[in-house]
């Protein structure tokens, strides 16, 4: 039986964590993602950009209390990719994973 290939955009610890956080939210600020993932600012920023370039995230840059604020939300494409990723993972685990 052939397994579905895992999406390389999502098959990364930090990018998967970001998308998993956003899947249950309408949107989340950069600092929220920073706190929950425990990543560094630089790495988080790089991975958000990669997700954005893949069309998985919508990123809005606004001002909150006079400070720049980055807000991220999962796009329809990102949600679809996440669902396909979870399905593929379950298939791998269903046959025993080494």
């Amino acid at each position, binding site marked *: 039986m052939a397994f579905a290939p*895992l999406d390389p955009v999502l*098959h*990364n*610890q*930090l990018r*998967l*964590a970001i998308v*998993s*956080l*956003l*899947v*249950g*939210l*309408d*949107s*989340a*600020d950069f*600092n*929220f993602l920073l*706190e*929950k*993932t425990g*990543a560094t600012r630089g*790495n988080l920023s790089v991975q958000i950009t990669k997700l954005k370039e893949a069309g998985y995230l919508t990123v809005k840059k606004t001002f*909150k*209390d006079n400070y720049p604020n980055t807000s991220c939300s999962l796009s329809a494409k990102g949600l679809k990719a996440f669902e396909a*990723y*979870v399905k593929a*993972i379950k298939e*791998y*685990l269903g046959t025993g*994973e080494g």
Partner: protein
Amino acid sequence: MDRELTPSESLRIIETMIGQAKSSFSRMSTYFLLWGVLLIAAMITTYMMRDSGGAWGQGAAWGVVGVIGGIASWIIGASQSKKEPVNNPMDRIVGWVWGSFIITMLLMIFCFGASHRDPGAAIALLTALPTFLTGQIMRFKPLIFGGLLFWVAGVIMFFSGNAAVITATYCIAMLFGYIVPGYLLKRQEDGLRTA
């Protein structure tokens, strides 16, 4: 961070992060504490002034705390919405539950007032609904208990003709249905922020 993930590691990340996002509710404790104190104050004022014959004895205190609480809630809500780091769909649902409650309550006050009947017991019964639902949505047991308490209080208030009993029942329901859960919720929220 960029090493290859195993499928079970992936699943663990997904479960952990979804769990973290689910627990990210907006701060709500302030509303329960604010309204709990204001409504107890209104109830006691109305009871103490019941024989005075003036506006306070007729329930003017409810209107005063309604305006004070409404303005304060609006200011708190506006301030918090600017600071909240996430937009959680559950917050929106809880918001609509309380919005529906306020509309129904105002209509009830109008209808009961127009027919010269006391809306107190009906409002206590109605208060149970959003309190209980909020507790269930947030999985916060003190609020679930608070909702149940308002249902019991509403029935007692409905069948009791004694002003002292009605006042005490309402105040106890507010204390254990709003203020105590509000305080416990505040401790939980403060703990989450400093964790």
